[in-house]
């Protein structure tokens, strides 16, 4: 079995509103995949279902042969689009926490990355700037030796220099046998690192193909092709 993630007939409804509509999708191992789509296309809803934060209305998700639960959560490293760390804890306490709960967490790697950024592990989260908090979260997530990394808008709201750092961190630290799923609006910035892309609109799959395929067949960059497909 080469598929890491198997999604079958997945639907999520909020009352009459359908956020994800009968989605069937398989994600292979060892790829960096961009999850792209306009606002409200269902990207974050899909990501939250993959992480067990939302219960699907219909359909199933399997990750590495397991339904979403403690077994999959031990293999998935998730970076949400918000700060999920306790603000009155020090970074060191948070490192302890990750070390205790995730068997695949490398404290050495996390401490090295913190040191390279000049972030003192003794400081409390609340004293950090927004950008530094995001970097700390990314460091925690990328210090895991996970099978699947799910990054929801990892470069949104940070300056271009920080974006480069974040992308470098992702590329240099992920387990090469793992899959990285990156959701973003900033296609131009991430395009260089992607192997494959998923286009979503109105909760449905529009396209799932390789980046090379778009460049060869359409003769365009992913960003240009995205603008063409989702032109208003």
């Amino acid at each position: 079995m080469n598929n890491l993630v198997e999604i079958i007939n997945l639907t999520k409804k909020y009352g009459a509103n359908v956020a994800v509509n009968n989605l069937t999708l398989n994600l292979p191992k060892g790829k960096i995949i961009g999850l792209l789509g306009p606002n409200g296309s269902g990207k974050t809803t899909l990501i939250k279902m993959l992480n067990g934060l939302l219960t699907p209305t219909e359909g199933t998700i399997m990750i590495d042969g397991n339904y979403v639960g403690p077994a999959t959560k031990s293999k998935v490293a998730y970076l949400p689009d918000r700060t999920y760390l306790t603000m009155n804890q020090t970074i060191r306490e948070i490192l302890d926490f990750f070390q205790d709960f995730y068997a695949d967490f490398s404290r050495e790697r996390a401490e090295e990355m913190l040191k390279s950024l000049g972030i003192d592990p003794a400081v409390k989260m609340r004293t950090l700037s927004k950008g530094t908090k995001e970097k700390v979260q990314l460091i925690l997530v990328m210090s895991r030796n996970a099978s699947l990394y799910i990054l929801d808008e990892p470069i949104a709201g940070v300056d271009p220099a920080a974006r480069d750092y974040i992308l470098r961190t992702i590329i240099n630290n992920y387990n090469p046998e793992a899959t990285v799923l990156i959701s973003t609006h900033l296609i131009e910035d991430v395009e260089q690192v992607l192997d494959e892309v998923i286009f979503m609109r109105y909760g449905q799959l529009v396209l799932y193909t390789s980046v090379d395929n778009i460049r060869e067949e359409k003769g365009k960059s992913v960003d240009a092709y995205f603008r063409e497909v989702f032109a208003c």
Partner: protein
Amino acid sequence: MLGKLMKYEWKNIWKAGTLMLLGMFIVTVIGCVVLQMPGVAEFFDSNDVNGVQAWLMISSFVAILILYVIMLLASTWGMLIFLGIRFYRSMYTDEGYLSHTLPVTANQLFLSKVLVSGVWYLFISIGIGISVVALVVSLMTGLLNIGELSSVLTQYNGNIWEFLADAFYELGRTYEEEMGINLLHYGITLFLTYLAGPFIAVVTLFGALTIGQLSSKHKGFMGILTYAGVTILSSIIRSTVQSAFMFGANVMSSPGGFSVSTNSAYDINVITSLLLAAIMYGVSYYIMNRKLNLD
């Protein structure tokens, strides 16, 4: 994993819990000191309610009493509110994104919070119990040393604890022989209620906040409404079951009916509370497993 979850839950609660216990200790010490101040016993003994000294004495007593009642309410409700906020924040706000993506089961997650919060709420209950006993003993120590009352304590060679033991024994005997209440039975149910009560309280609160998550909007507010609703409903059910038992079995008109109904009332109270806690736990487990929808 349950142990690790409990360890981190403890770390998040112990500071606030210790502060509340410390506050309780300080108020209790102040109360004890005031009650044992020179002149208090003489004031009660003289029955002189006129003059500045009497006014000051009464004012101090009222102030201490008000402070003490506020402290009791603040400790019990304050701790419950703190635990509720802490639970809600860690489970159903941004921090919930970390809690619910840990490689643990929903049962481990919920149980760890119930156990640690329940233990801290039990500490507060024990603290209140000790505080009340300390104030009562302090007051009696002062009063029993004056006038005619001092002769009572003389019989016990000034040992207040021996006096209290005898007083409680006498009270128990009256309960048992004259009112027909089984004291051992009463003691066991009281102990169980005291021990299980804090855990039942937090399960009910956490369960209500979890049920509030089923709402599409204003989830926190719906959780509070659910808590109020569940509390009122459980009181109604408890009263209805007790009434049905009393009237159905004609216990009031039968010989010894009062004692039978009183003993059964304690049982019904314990059973319905445990049943409520079990239902709230089960519902929470179901929602966290099958209906979780974090905003």
